[in-house]
């Protein structure tokens, strides 16, 4: 019983802290926290795919970036307002997710890895190379934040907006993974053949999981476009996918909360390292190696192991 009460207390304290944050730290850190929350959503969306369904994708940034570009293109080239650009971006990332899923789910394992990697790079190459449409490497600055009644130009206002949106999205993701659908995904992760033998159309479940993951990633991407007021091809690059992947692994795949923590850590680390040196990739790669060697089940895994050893001799 104390376990449950303990969890509720932690949650309440956490939410209180999140709500009070802008009054406790400088605006720079409010901005950083906003970024952490956005990437927490991105990481959780990948966890749905990797941690729950067992599909390791190396190209998740494709959906993140497509949504971001959709926002930028609609606002800057089509002069469309926030009410339309935001949902349109979600539609764009969802559709892209469906298209990639149809191709990538033709295969499994290593082929699936390669295909997601390659397809995401193709999308990147379009953004990078089609200068007349996307400005190529220079990116698209000047993305104005939406005005849903209140102005979101201020750091604090945008922080609360992101907190609300991601909070709802997180609750939705939680509902999904706890549902019978979520249970089926975990079954598929453990044994596709067993699920097939039990009467589940495995492909269909994987497809829906993939598309859902793409949608939530797109939501994060759209928020990020507004956050930076800028969109560039790096949103689509494999390095962005790699960051999302390590967020999930570092935090602990298959736990939802783990990847959120992992995201916060990686965002913080990148911010810190980038202020000291240009060698973020070196650090990122090293984290990959270290986590895989010493904490393959992530931080949540370490905590679970520690508690098991302490309380169950």
């Amino acid at each position, binding site marked *: 019983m104390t376990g449950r009460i303990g969890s509720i207390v932690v949650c309440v304290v956490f939410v209180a802290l999140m709500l009070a944050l802008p009054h406790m730290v400088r605006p720079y850190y409010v901005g950083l926290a906003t970024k952490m929350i956005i990437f927490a959503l991105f990481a959780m969306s990948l966890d749905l795919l990797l941690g729950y369904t067992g599909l*390791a994708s*190396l190209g998740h940034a494709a959906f993140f970036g497509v949504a971001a570009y959709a926002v930028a293109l609609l606002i800057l080239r089509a002069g469309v307002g926030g009410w339309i650009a935001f949902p349109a971006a979600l539609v764009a990332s969802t559709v892209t997710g469906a298209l990639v899923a149809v*191709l*990538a789910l*033709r*295969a499994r*394992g*290593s*082929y699936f*890895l*390669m*295909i997601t*990697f*390659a*397809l995401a*790079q*193709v999308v990147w*190459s*379009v953004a990078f*190379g*089609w200068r007349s449409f996307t400005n190529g490497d220079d990116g698209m600055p000047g993305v104005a934040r939406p005005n849903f009644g209140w102005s979101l130009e201020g750091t604090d206002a945008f922080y609360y907006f992101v907190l609300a949106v991601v909070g709802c999205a997180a609750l939705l993701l939680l509902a999904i993974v706890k549902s019978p659908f979520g249970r089926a995904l975990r079954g598929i992760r453990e044994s596709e053949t067993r699920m097939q033998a039990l009467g589940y159309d495995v492909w269909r479940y994987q497809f829906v999981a993939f598309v859902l993951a793409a949608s939530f990633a797109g939501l994060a991407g759209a928020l990020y476009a507004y956050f930076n007021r800028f969109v560039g091809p790096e949103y689509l690059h*494999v*390095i962005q996918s*790699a960051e999302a*992947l*390590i967020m999930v*692994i570092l935090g602990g795949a298959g736990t939802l909360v783990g990847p959120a923590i992992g995201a916060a850590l990686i965002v913080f680390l990148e911010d810190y390292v980038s202020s000291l040196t240009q*060698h*973020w*990739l*070196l650090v*990122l*790669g*090293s*984290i*990959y*190696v270290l*986590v*895989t*060697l010493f904490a*393959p089940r992530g931080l949540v895994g370490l905590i679970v192991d520690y508690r098991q050893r302490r309380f169950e001799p």
Partner: protein
Amino acid sequence: MIWVIHVLNGIAIGMLLFLLAAGLSLIFGLMKILNLTHGSFYLVGGYIGLTVMQRTGSFALALLAAAAAIALLGAVIERFVLRRFHLDELPQTLLTFGFLFIFADLSLWIWGGDPVMVRQPRILAGSLPMGDYGYPIYRLFLIAVGLVVAGALWWFQEHTRLGTMLRAGVDDAEIARALGIDVSLLFTLIFAVGAALAALGGVLAAPILSLYPGADFDALILAFVVVIVGGLGSLKGALVGALLVGLLDDFGKAFFPQFALFTVFVPMAFILVVRPTGLFGRR
């Protein structure tokens, strides 16, 4: 005649891709490891070759040094890091992915961010007259090298006991040991050979393509497309896939220059719809 030129270009590039893809396929076929560090082996190998060329002016030495250095690097990585995760797919992927980034950063640090090209070795410079045009001898050399390597690998696969094992895709270490083969040595050896092939590709490519930060990712993507089309774990698949992708890449660049990666995407998408395990893939 211009078609012949394009075809030869495509085959030359295809041979480079073959070196990359063969290494990837070889490693996967035996060890079931999808080696994402392969791109680094290509780029760093190329950079090492460049440095050796700059110091000694000898292309042959550059090739040798790059192959040896990268083979050693590969052997060390396999022996001390990858060995622990022989059968787990995700950890292997994460490790080789991590190394890809580490080497990307290190090579940027050591060799800088400007694209560099290696000078063509003098004996291979010049062109062979073909109709109204002259075709670069270097590219013909590439085609020759590719054929020699393909031939050597094929011979090894068909006519040695080791090769038969590789072809069968030995999954059972017990059987291998019963046949008197030192499995751990074999794994390290094959990984080193695969890495060396990638490095050779990097040095050979350097005079016609340039070496630049990000070439590791680009090479890796193309290698992936080749094995997706040709089938992972198949030597024949690597060759056929490489030639196909090379030709498509060349024609793509000639006719749709802004969408080069797109024309590489098309065969991949096509294969996935029609035959997901690749032309010569298993299962």
